[in-house]
């Protein structure tokens, strides 16, 4: 169980950020020193449309407590339409995950532009709080190769 010394639950959160908007938004959050918990680890993808559902399943299988996908705002996708595909794909995936016990609150799609450092930070803070309130992800645990 990922706890710190004082017994506080520290979730493991994977964030997929598109290179053009959200990753840049995360950079801006950084250069603006807008903090969010270290529990969030970002993986850079060219576009939110690149995120394969398998990546999310894999993350949960490996012990992630929450997965968030960030892309450009609707209409602003660097590749025109990738974020729309992501949204459609993820809506389906999330409802399926919910069905098998990975609650809807553990998954999220958010639009963050390159200029929205503050939004990125706020979103991550909020998401971490949400995951903390949901506690450790125990579903998909049987798939995990853990001792």
């Amino acid at each position, binding site marked *: 169980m990922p706890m710190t010394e004082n017994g506080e639950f520290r979730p*493991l959160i*994977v964030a997929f950020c598109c*290179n*053009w*908007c959200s*990753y*840049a938004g*995360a*950079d801006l*959050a*950084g*250069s603006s*020193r*807008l*903090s*969010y918990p*270290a529990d969030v*680890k*970002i*993986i*850079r*993808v*060219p*576009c939110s*449309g*690149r*995120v*394969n*559902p*398998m*990546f999310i399943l*894999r*993350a949960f299988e*490996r*012990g*992630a407590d929450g997965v968030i996908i960030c892309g*450009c705002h609707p*209409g*602003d*996708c*660097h*590749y*025109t*339409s*990738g974020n729309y*595909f*992501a949204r459609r*794909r993820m809506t389906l995936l999330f409802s399926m995950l919910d069905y098998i016990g990975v609650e809807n609150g553990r998954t999220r799609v958010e639009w963050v*532009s*390159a*200029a*929205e450092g503050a939004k990125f*930070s706020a979103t991550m803070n909020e998401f971490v709080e949400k995951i903390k309130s949901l506690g450790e992800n125990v579903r998909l645990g049987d798939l995990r190769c853990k001792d």
Partner: protein
Amino acid sequence: MQRIGVFVCHCGTNIAATVDVKKVVELVRFEPGVVHAEDYPYMCSEVGQQKIAEAIKEKQLTGVVVCSCSPRMHEATFRNCAEKAGLNPYMVEVANIREHCSWIHKDMEEATKKAVILARAAIAKVNLNTPLQAGESPVVKRALVIGGGIAGIQTAIDIAEAGYKVDIVEKTPSIGGRMSQLDKTFPTLDCSSCILTPKMVEVSTHPNITIHTYSEVDKVSGFVGNFTVDIKKKARSVDLDKCTGCGVCQQKCPMKKVPNEFNRELNTRSAIYTPFAQAVPNVPVIDREHCLMFKTGKCGVCSKVCQAGAVDYEQQDEIITEKYGAIVVATGFDIIKLDKYDEYAYSQSPDVITSLELERIMNAAGPTNGHLERMSDHKPPKNMVFIQCVGSRCADHRGKSYCSKICCMYTAKHAMLIRDKYPDVNVTVFYIDVRTPGKNFDEFYRRAVEQYHVNYIKGQVGKVAPQPDGSLLVQGVDLIDNKQIVMNADMVVLAAAIEPNPDIRKIATMLTASIDTNNFLTEAHAKLRPVESPTAGIFLSGVTQGPKDIPETVSQAGAAAVKVIGLLAKDKLKTNPCTAKCDVMMCNGCSTCANVCPYGAITYEDQEVRGPGVREVRRVAQVNVALCQGCGACTGACPSGAMDLQGFSNRQLISEVDAICR
């Protein structure tokens, strides 16, 4: 197995103050494939890069991980460095331990732990990297400038002077933009059209420049070096080549009640019109919405009086398609609508006006022929009140969050010009702050106070109340005196916030250029690449990027031109090798990938597929790498897992997930 070198940057104290870099070095040594790890205060420095190059050579590295700032900052630097040392540049990955770690976390232990995890993810990825070769694409040596205001004009001239062809697309019937509406300009009080018209003439006569007025960009495809653009040329109803610009049609047109946009609707114009006397081209258009011929089929006066036979009611909108190597966005601004600010009675009194309306009133070619007068009764005002920051610096639902930047200066200009020409007029300015950063700007504002005795009051106005006698009662506060002030005015001038041209969203979407929540286009880097969009080949000129005055706009327009010239001067561009790739063994030719590809880069062909136990001819996907931009939409859509993206492959991304979730 790769031989990976890990290089951890201190970035001075930017990283090292929160991340224990020595510990990171120590811990990553044990990661699979890592044969070398070191830290250095500034990895991006010459010495730092040398260390990477030396390690590549001495340790025969096949992969490099740099733990430093964002890859958006220095990925290219480190990849170049590796390439020079003989390593394929795509064998380098950056772990972002500054923007995503040291700058946002305070606890050293926690930040160090996270930095190690981010490094591990990058190492895991590099373990699966393969050398990639960038292709080449040709550059079309022609630029498109969208918007024909001072920004677009200056950019076009500068590009054309370097010897490249430029097209300007302008939505309205004439180039000139906002600057053509201004009377005088700060801080030297030059007459705006006197300095603008020569430039307008220069663009219109330059052999390298083509102007499409009354035209809009309709469709954009392609990519840097090779954009294809559809331009819609709206039917002007007047033949550009035949018209002599004599102006008789405008005089004789019986429909004279059309609100005059150029004069901010303070007066009216004819249905066939040129927006202003110095218009370029000096050829009128027929406003079909208001023209009697188009509305009722009965009139035809303009055609009858036209000696040149230039009027053509049958003209149709036309779409032309051109190819460009670079596109500059210079779509400018408008002022916000003031209907949500009726405490200032803008919609209730014709004597409450915007600063842009005042420009037209003070302009000799404006609705009052340059006489300062009230629009209600055409009497000269005695007392004028200027209100600053109307809709700027707002955190509420009504206005804009930013400072519009130009208002303090143009208000000082207006106040000064009025006091100079009409010394009897009392001028009061309600301000929150007077912001005058700029060469000779504060001196200019001080002149308004010291020489012209303009009454600057620190405070805002709460309400403007029109009185039965036609005057305006202004209720404001003087914060220095801590008193509420109620004063009579004959005219109130509102410094309305500026906002990007409302068309910009549509244009940004066509260009896939990033745009911020205020509808300003985003720069590739706020400080170091301020005239480039993150989308390669798209450049920003003028207020489309953020609020600017004329001197700044002209500088930025020139800077954008230089970037365009730098691009057009190249014969070939390196293409992104991170393109999609189909594993024909797994592909069943279902077409799902082609349906999601925004670039039409995927085609199908019958191909012989050979593998263990398989030898057949079947339909499989083919990626045209010249068209593929590497978004990866196909990879997510592919039901059989045949599509993968080089540089961001399924296995690479999953290995990152695994490294993080360990």
